[in-house]
Structure formats: structure tokens, C-alpha cells
């Protein structure tokens, strides 16, 4: 800079001094005592905090899905009334509803839903009890993770139906076959959910844990597990979906023996009797159970979990 021969360094202290007096508050004490400070902070806190928002029942959350369902049923009825296909091949909504009523009257529907639901829930809970410690162990111990990680991911890709023939040979037509298939479907996906939940924990949390003096077990139970809870819950949801699907597959394929009468068995019975209304009724019931479990169990838990962590703002849920 030829036009400005004055060295910059000499100007600096003067400039700093001048600006320093303007920022008086930043350089010296700016409050007059504890009470003054308390009041200032209280004022600032209330300015900077959002007012608590009230939660109202959002009717669109209920009305929109119901409207979507009605539209789908109307489209179905319209298609059937066009008469493109024979009525016994593509029954209308009213035929299926009538069949559901008949099945209810015979008590078959209740038996099938109850048998399947009971198995699904028991199988899922046992899977959770097995998968949680295994997943935590794999996520926390690097050599174990490296050794078994690819296998667990692979098992998740392998359709659990593939185990049905093996299970029938090993366990025969018993409940053990059904449970085995459910485990092979649910356990890997819960483990994977937990591991990916642990992977997404901000590294800062572990550092805080170390600084606060947590030992290995305390770190796993007090910090890693709660921090990984959103991912873990995602794994549980997927685990339930996999147990339910695997269960249906097992029930459709393995019929007879001491295996009871579940929704899959009902579906297979409809196929054997060439009764499309039974088949459709069974499919809709399997779907309905899945939707109800999601709506009544997982959605409320997930919503509470996310809201308490401030993660729901701006989502479309």
C-alpha cells in the first residue's frame, strides 16, 4: 500500500482503545450484584424462550386417512361394478365384508386373529429380549462388530421364509417352526436398528460421559442406550414388521400338525377352497392388524419420544 505508509501495527493499540470504550460492557463488570444479575438473566431467559404451545386435537390427522380409505373402497367398488372380471375372481367390498361377517359368526376370525397376534407378540418380545443385549454388545465392542456385522446385515437381507423348509425338517409342524422363522426375521433387524442408532450418537455425548466419570457399563446403559433410542425404536418397528411378515409366511406354508389356526392358515384355506372372498378377507385382516399395531403402539411411543427431545418440529407427521 504505497499511499498509506503508516505501519498498521502502530495504529492498532489506539484503534483498539477507542473501540474498547464503546464496548464498555464487554470489558468490565456490567451488572451491580447477584440480585441485579438474577433479574437480568430472568428477563433474558423469558425473552429467549418460546412460550409453551398448547396441543390441540388435529382433526385432519384422523379425517384425511379415513377419507383416503373411503376413496380406495369406492374405486374398488367402481372397478367391480364395471364387470371386467368374473365376480368370484374379483369380489367387491361388500362381498368381502359379508364373508368377514360369516367368519366372525363361525368364530373362525377371532380364533385366527388371536392365534396369530399372540404368536406375533410373543415372538417379537422374545426377539427384543435377545436382540437388545446382542446389539448393544456388537455396537460397543469393535472386534465383535467387525466379525459379526456383515453376517447380521446379510441375515436381514435373507428373506426369513427361506428358513421355513429347514424349520419344518428340524421341528416338524409345531409352534417351534413358526417361532424359529419369526426370530430369524425379527432379531437381525432389531440388532441392525440398535447398531445404527448407536452409530448416530453425537461423539460429544461419549466425551461428556467420560468426563463425568462413567464406567463401561454406565456408559452403555445411561448414555449410549438412551441416546440411541430413536434409532432403536426404528429397529423395533422394523423388527415387528419382520416378525409379522415371517409369521404369515410360516403360517401359509406350514399348515397342520400341532400348528394352530392363524390368519396365514385362513388365507391358505381360502386358496384351497378357491374362495376369493376368504382370501381377500384374510389379506385385509393381516393388513388391519399391522396398521392397528402401528397406530396404537408404535406411533404414540415414537411421537412422545421425538417430542420430548425436540425432534418433531417441522415434520409432516
Amino acid at each position: 500500500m504505497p499511499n498509506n505508509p503508516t505501519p498498521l501495527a502502530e495504529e492498532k493499540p489506539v484503534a483498539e482503545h477507542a473501540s474498547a470504550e464503546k464496548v464498555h460492557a464487554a470489558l468490565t463488570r456490567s451488572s451491580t450484584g447477584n440480585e441485579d444479575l438474577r433479574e437480568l438473566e430472568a428477563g433474558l431467559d423469558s425473552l429467549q424462550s418460546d412460550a409453551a404451545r398448547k396441543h390441540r386435537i388435529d382433526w385432519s390427522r384422523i379425517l384425511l386417512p379415513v377419507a383416503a380409505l373411503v376413496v380406495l373402497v369406492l374405486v374398488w367398488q367402481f372397478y367391480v361394478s364395471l364387470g371386467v372380471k368374473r365376480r368370484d375372481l374379483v369380489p367387491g367390498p361388500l362381498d368381502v365384508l359379508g364373508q368377514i361377517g360369516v367368519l366372525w359368526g363361525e368364530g373362525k376370525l377371532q380364533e385366527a386373529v388371536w392365534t396369530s397376534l399372540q404368536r406375533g407378540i410373543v415372538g417379537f418380545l422374545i426377539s427384543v429380549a435377545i436382540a437388545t443385549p446382542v446389539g448393544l454388545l456388537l455396537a460397543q465392542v469393535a472386534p465383535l462388530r467387525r466379525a459379526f456385522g456383515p453376517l447380521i446385515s446379510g441375515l436381514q437381507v435373507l428373506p426369513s421364509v427361506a428358513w421355513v423348509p429347514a424349520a419344518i425338517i428340524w421341528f416338524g409342524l409345531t409352534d417351534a417352526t413358526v417361532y424359529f422363522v419369526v426370530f430369524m426375521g425379527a432379531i437381525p433387524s432389531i440388532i441392525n436398528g440398535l447398531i445404527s442408532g448407536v452409530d448416530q450418537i453425537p461423539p460429544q455425548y461419549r466425551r461428556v460421559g467420560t468426563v463425568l466419570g462413567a464406567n463401561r457399563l454406565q456408559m452403555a446403559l445411561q448414555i449410549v442406550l438412551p441416546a440411541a433410542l430413536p434409532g432403536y425404536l426404528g429397529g423395533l418397528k422394523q423388527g415387528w414388521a419382520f416378525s409379522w411378515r415371517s409369521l404369515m409366511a410360516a403360517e401359509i406354508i406350514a399348515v397342520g400338525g400341532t400348528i394352530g389356526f392363524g390368519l396365514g392358515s385362513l388365507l391358505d384355506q381360502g386358496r384351497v377352497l378357491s374362495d376369493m372372498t376368504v382370501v381377500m378377507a384374510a389379506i385385509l385382516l393381516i393388513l388391519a392388524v399391522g396398521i392397528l399395531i402401528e397406530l396404537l403402539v408404535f406411533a404414540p411411543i415414537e411421537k412422545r419420544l421425538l417430542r420430548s427431545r425436540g425432534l418433531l418440529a417441522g415434520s409432516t407427521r
Partner: protein
Amino acid sequence: MPVVLENLGKRFGDGAPVLDDVNATIGAGEFVALLGASGCGKSTLLNIMAGLEVPTSGALEVPSDGAAFMFQDAALFPWLTARENIELALKLRGVGKSQRRVKADELLDLVHLGEAGDKRPHELSGGMRQRVALARSLAQDRQLLLMDEPFAALDAITRDLLHDELERIWKETGRTIVFVTHNVREAVRLGQRVLLLSSRPGRVVQEWAVSEEHRTDAGLAGQLTGVITARLREEIRRHAK
């Protein structure tokens, strides 16, 4: 002397040393501001003092019970309320269940957050979160408190208030505080002593004492800020080539 650093050096892998021949002593109850430009290894030095990292050479003496640590972001656990965050620190320290609640409320009151104990971190403002984090680090009950740019991400109004707040709490609790910052004004505002760390490698190149007069006389404080800034810039200019 709670903290003695002797010829401390640190390098990561085969890279250039981050810290080289750092020497410093910090007395009990002292408030030391550790000042330096970005990338001078301030945080690394703090991590070494906290036992989160090991030095590659030299020796250090820190209190045997370790140090409390406060991070730049509050790093509160989002699944716990403000009070539970503090209670967790007490629990991991081994405080009995019956005492935790009382102790946590005392600490919340100390940082003027008596009313906000049941709020979750996401419901608190940045300044409030940082005060909860301060209360949590006090819950660790260590003589030595290490602070890594704890107010860097806050707005200016909040930061000014928290400076007063921290000074008050330091006087009330008699902690030894090492406060890392890249803000010269903040260093002069808070520290009894300001240590300037050079960059690449980090080394203590100069130190200044800040007297009680500097706390009340803005002109005097401004002058010292100017002197330290000039020295800091000289240090930065060395890296221009």
C-alpha cells in the same frame, strides 16, 4: 499447585507437533485464560489436562481426582430434563439418591435457573443451556474446572451476562478455572492471568496479569486488550508466508 505443565508436547501420528514445549503453572483458585488463534492446540491442551488425550512428551501434574469439563456446546443429554442432567453427573460421581435432588436444585439455583429444572434442553435458550452445563460441571465437584470456549456460540448480550455470572460463581466456589478462548476481550474480562499460545506448534509465548482495576476501568482494560491483540496478530502474521 493444582496444575503444572512441563515441556509438554503433542503430535498426532507423524504430523507436525500440535503442542511443543508448553510450560505453565496454575495455582489453586486461580482463573487463567488461555488465549490463542484457531488451530493453536488450545483445545488439545485442555483435553490433555482433562485426561481425554495423552501427551506425546513432557510431564503434567493435575489433581488426582481429575477435572470438570465444560464444552463449547452445552452437550446436555436431550432425553433428560435440566435437573436430571445435573443429577446424572451427581450419580456418576457416586452421590446417594436421596441427596441428588437437593444438590441438583441447589446448583440450579446457583446458576439462577431454579424455575427451569423440569425443562428439556430443547426448551431452553442457548444461554440457559450453557448455565445448566456450568451447573453440571460444578456437580462434578472437582477443584479444577476446564472450559473450552463455553460462550463462543452465544449472542453478545448473553455472553456479557454470563461473564458476570461465571466471575460470581468462581468467587463463590473457589474453583481453579482454565478458560480457553480466542476472544481477547473475553480473556481480559475473565482471567486473572492471560496466557498467549502461539500457533503450530502451540507454545506459551507470553503472559499478562489482569488486576482488579481492569475489572472496573474500561480504559485500562481496553489498553491491555490492545496490547494483547497486537501480540496475537504478530503471532498470526508469522504464518503469512
